[in-house]
């Protein structure tokens, strides 16, 4: 049996310590990003998710300078960025993208400085690449503890806020009228998003983290009609992409050109993207068959609103 599967599971796959750590961390992160990501897509805050991903670069490069692990840098950088976005006014729907963009720009400027300072003493190419594109096989086993702790915190925040967050994501006026503190709920959610993006950055890199945050959730939204099912579906897609990505990356150590393993993040992101495309098929087919489209007729009834 084992030799039958050997083209798929290359020798040593199940015994490898880095693979085990990667699978454990990848699974946790896939669950966390699915839970947060569904709300990110529903709230239309994908750009903030992207910004937290990118800003992880600032935190990660800052961590290099100080000499601590990347996760600490991602978390610190993103939490500061979340506070800055909140202060600049991310919760006003009109100026939201502007607030995000301004903080993003300022943060990436810092990243440039940190990498320059670090690079004047070390060779930076390898570390920069691993911050930007992830290095899940290089995660120290001592990082597992903090990853579990952070994942638990994000899950706790999001599950606790589930109902108030859902209603304020749908309509903030309706939520406020029920006495839900919409502003506080939004700020706590932003914190959860910042932490989830930091975790995603650890696995597939700062630049690609948004793919894990938004991709499985966006696919799940195409496939399901219920919020909880969407979270579960997104989690399954995320875990699947992560495991398959780790497996393919491990196999790719024997692949050309360099025989040194393709990046896990490449595989994960590509799988997520393919799943998103596939998730659009049922609807596209339904549309071709002429099933019920989104109704526009009744809303655009002319004449009544003067």
């Amino acid at each position: 049996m084992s030799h039958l599967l050997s083209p798929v599971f290359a020798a040593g796959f199940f015994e490898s310590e880095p693979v085990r750590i990667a699978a454990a961390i990848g699974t946790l992160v896939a669950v966390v990003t699915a839970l947060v990501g569904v709300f990110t897509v529903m709230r239309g805050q994908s750009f903030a998710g992207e910004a937290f991903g990118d800003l992880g670069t600032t935190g990660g490069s800052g961590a290099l300078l100080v000499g601590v692990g990347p996760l600490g840098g991602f978390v610190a950088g993103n939490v500061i960025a979340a506070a800055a976005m909140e202060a600049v006014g991310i919760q006003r729907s009109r100026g939201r993208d502007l607030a995000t963009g301004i903080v993003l720009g300022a943060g990436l400027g810092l990243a440039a400085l940190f990498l320059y300072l670090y690079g004047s003493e070390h060779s930076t190419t390898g570390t920069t690449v691993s911050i930007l594109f992830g290095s899940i096989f290089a995660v120290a086993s001592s990082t597992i503890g903090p990853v579990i702790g952070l994942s638990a915190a994000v899950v706790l925040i999001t599950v606790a806020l589930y109902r108030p967050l859902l209603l304020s994501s749908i309509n903030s006026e309706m939520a406020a009228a029920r006495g839900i503190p919409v502003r506080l709920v939004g700020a706590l959610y932003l914190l959860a998003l910042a932490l989830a993006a930091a975790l995603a950055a650890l696995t597939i890199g700062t630049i690609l983290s948004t793919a894990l945050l938004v991709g499985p959730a966006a696919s799940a939204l195409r496939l399901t009609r219920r919020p909880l099912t969407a979270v579960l579906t997104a989690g399954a897609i995320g875990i699947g992409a992560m495991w398959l990505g780790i497996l393919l990356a491990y196999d790719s150590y024997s692949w050309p050109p360099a025989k040194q393993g393709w990046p896990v993040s490449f595989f994960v992101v590509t799988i997520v993207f393919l799943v998103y495309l596939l998730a659009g098929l049922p609807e596209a087919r339904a549309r071709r068959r002429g099933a019920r489209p989104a109704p526009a007729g009744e809303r655009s009834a002319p004449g009544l609103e003067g």
Partner: protein
Amino acid sequence: MSLDGSGAAASILEVSDLDVQLGGRRILDGVSFRIAPGEFTGLIGSNGAGKTTLFRVILGLQPASAGRVAIEGAAGGRSRRALGYVPQKFLIDPDVPLRARDLVGLGIDAQRLGVPLPSRTRRERVEQMLEAVDAVEFADTRVGRLSGGEQQRILIAHALISEPRLLLLDEPLANLDLRSAAEVVRLLARIAREQRIAVLISAHEINPLLPVMDRVVYLASGRAANGTTAEIIRAEVLSKLYGHHVDVLNVHGRVLIVAGAGEDTDLAGHEGMFPGAGIPS
């Protein structure tokens, strides 16, 4: 103006001498009215007359500069639990994974922490509410894919399921075709009558509400006139409210409120019909 004791206890909502200023502009100016339990009240006024602001003050989302809002005789706070609210301009993306029945269910306990646990009582309560607003057939469709009239029925169910004593609806008929608007009005009137829930519904067009309104609160230039339709929808009353002459015409049981061709030359050439169409507010 404030009525205490037995008078206040009899009304579900009492608004007294309400002033609201926003950014130096006076939006509401000495607005007073009362709503009794089970009463169907239309809040009529053009766009910008202050209808949404009035709702926001009643809901406690907007502070008043002066005056008082009493719900079931008490000012603000926990008494707001007696209110159900359907907001203006409900826009939801068709891709949001939320069935109509999920939104109705959120009406029970959206303010609570945690994930709602499935239970038979919860399911049955939602089902009953869906039946009450004739929404069973599209209960499993995503809210964002419903037509405007269907969405309004779901929003009404969402507001009603927490058993309020006063339902506030901000322009629920805007953007509905005439038939859907009539259906929503008929539904609201039935609910008000059967469950003795007071309804305050805002609209810029009075006619769809004429058959069912017990009272009207007419807003113009931040000021309000209130009474029965027969008392308020008259040329003298509305002219005084607008501060210039308007005519009220009856056409086959419907009313047209038309800016009069009086001394006010600003209005010349406007074919004003209904509040706001030709009348600056």
